[in-house]
């Protein structure tokens, strides 16, 4: 299989040009995850190698003139940093340059709100060797013992992790969920909007801000109707965030039970998670300009094909989106090749 550049030519037009106020929905299933595509979106927006773009016949204007805010609900900072490194993107450096910002919706989403400094101080009380971090305890706001049960695994945290969380501190904004219903979502929106505003403050003319929300369906599944959050509220939350940025990309799971059990032709009663997820995913598809659907081959696993990418026009599409179905293959080293059916 011929090696392709980090942005395969077939895929490049879909990744680089996002019109204003557009929503792109990326749907994945368990066997065909969307992380590689999210990374390609990052690469298309953040990579500064202009000769790559020239070789693809794209205008210079698309390149290096974008800022990205990545909100991830299923993956932490370490994952994205390591994976982006394999593509040649140094996210930490880009974050220093205020080109990139990461919002962590995973690690402390349901922990009680604490300052980043106070968090490592909780284990430091119990375990002697980490006494070196004692100065952190001088924070008066953090009351020891008020920590959530999840603080217990943190006992295993060693100095290395401690140091890492300090470097994360400047880059990563951690989301905390508190309260219920619309108010809780509004608080999350404010947190993300503050990161967006920080990025915008250093923006030059002609720069565009791209927001990537990775798997917000986790938030819906973790809260759900009992917390007063349903598909409508989540979709409103997304459109609220959309108003702050130039373009938005949302990734979602579209596994069969999450989508089809709630349909009217379903034979059994759908659970709240199933029906809320289906409503959320489908209503986002109705709003989206384009929907990129990832799935595995219907004919079973193949040695040289990882899955199928179908790009369709969503409900809010204009005629500018060309619909396609492509095959992709992710090599062992993380390299990607994208090709049409019957080609190699």
């Amino acid at each position, binding site marked *: 299989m011929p090696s392709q550049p980090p942005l395969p030519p077939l895929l490049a037009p879909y990744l680089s040009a996002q019109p*204003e*106020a557009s929503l792109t929905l990326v*749907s*994945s*299933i368990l066997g*065909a995850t969307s992380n590689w595509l999210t990374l390609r979106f990052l690469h298309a927006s953040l990579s500064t190698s202009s000769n790559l773009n020239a070789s693809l016949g794209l205008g210079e204007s698309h390149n290096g003139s974008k800022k990205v805010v990545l909100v991830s609900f299923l993956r932490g900072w370490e994952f994205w940093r390591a994976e982006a490194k394999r593509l040649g993107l140094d996210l930490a450096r880009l974050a220093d340059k205020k080109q990139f910002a990461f919002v962590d919706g995973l690690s402390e989403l349901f922990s009680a709100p604490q300052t980043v400094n106070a968090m490592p101080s909780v284990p430091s009380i119990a375990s002697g060797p980490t006494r070196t971090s004692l100065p952190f305890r001088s924070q008066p706001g953090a009351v020891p013992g008020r920590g959530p049960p999840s603080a217990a695994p943190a006992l295993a945290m060693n100095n290395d992790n401690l140091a890492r969380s300090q470097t994360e501190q400047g880059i990563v904004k951690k989301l905390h969920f508190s309260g219920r*219903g*619309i108010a809780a979502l509004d608080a999350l929106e404010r947190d993300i909007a503050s990161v967006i505003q920080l990025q915008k403050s250093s923006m030059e003319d002609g720069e565009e801000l791209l927001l990537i929300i990775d798997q917000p369906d986790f938030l819906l599944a973790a809260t759900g*109707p009992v917390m*007063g*959050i*349903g*598909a*409508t*509220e989540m*979709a*409103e939350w997304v*459109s*609220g965030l*959309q*108003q702050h940025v130039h373009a938005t990309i949302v990734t979602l799971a*579209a*596994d*069969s039970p999450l*989508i*089809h059990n*709630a*349909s*009217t*032709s379903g034979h059994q009663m*759908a659970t709240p998670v199933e*029906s809320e997820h*289906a*409503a959320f*995913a*489908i*209503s986002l*598809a*109705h*709003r989206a300009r384009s*929907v990129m*659907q*990832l*799935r*595995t081959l*219907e004919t079973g696993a193949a040695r040289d094909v990882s899955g*199928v990418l*179908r790009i*369709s*026009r*969503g*409900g*809010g*599409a204009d*005629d500018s989106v*060309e*619909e*396609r*179905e492509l095959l992709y293959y992710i090599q062992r080293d993380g390299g990607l090749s994208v090709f049409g059916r019957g080609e190699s």
Partner: protein
Amino acid sequence: MAPLNLSHRRTHNLLLISKLLSLRDTASPLTLLQDSLEQPATPLIKEYIRRAKLSKVHVTLIAFETLKAPDGVDAFVSARHKSPENIVKEVAAAYQPSTSAAPSKRRLIIIDAINPLLSSRRLDAGFHLPTFLGSFIAPASPTAKADTSLVVTYHQDVPGLPQQNPYSPSPLTMLTYLATSIITLHSFSHILAQKAARDRSLVAPVFGLKEEQEGVLLGRLDKLRGTNAAEGIVLELEHRRKSGRGVLEWYLLPPASRYSPQQVKEIVTLLDDNVLYNPPMELDTNAGDEEPKSTFELGLTERQRREREGVVLPYFDAQQGNGPGEGGRILYDMGEEDDFDEEEDEI
């Protein structure tokens, strides 16, 4: 029944859809558009706005989904984080008919998706859908009187909330009951594929979510794009006249690239008039004037036909009742080319 019926439908039903889309005579105060991911209502809404602009109708868009106001919208009301009462108030405030203008000023209110409202958890139990919709069509203040048409889009494939009250009808039932016209949208290429399957007595194919294939949300792939073939939207219209009589018709709306934005002439056609959907019957048209080819002359000349018509067949002769024994006579009129031979021929 087809030909006569078709021309009748062509005249009346095309007039009807023209009236409905151009909002003439407020033919339909509440139109319900039922769309799906396979065929979103966006092109039809654009067509509504285009026609409204041509006839200088005031357009208000109540946006539950749309972020940016499309071209041609006079008032854009974002419904995000707003209670139904506030939406009604804002919509009423968005349009102030000047008293000096013509008294019958028309207004179009479009709701881009009603689903978020119907499945919102913020709604109190007192929310009443008919009142909400009615307050747009017939505002409480008589000063703001205008001929208002309301177009509501409902996404059929978005699952709604489970019924709170098992005895009350579902919101969709309520909407279809209230609506004066219901337009269900289909993709033309899907309709063609389903018709092709039906013509062969096969099970009609399904697309998109209905395929129930893992990872597939949308089945639409415009393979036909650019071939100028099966582009367009099929509109399945159910219109309730004031008399109570219902009209059912299938129409085809061509894609917007096929006509100029200023075009006034009707662009919607009957689906049955489409060549792809209803191809002309090859055999019927040709059989009339062409005969099987042969080296023999199988036709009749005019004279031969006349003489053949003049022949009295034996059973007509037998019915004259000239008594028994007369049957079986040979009836023969001599022609001028017959050569009578006394010895051989006996009559």
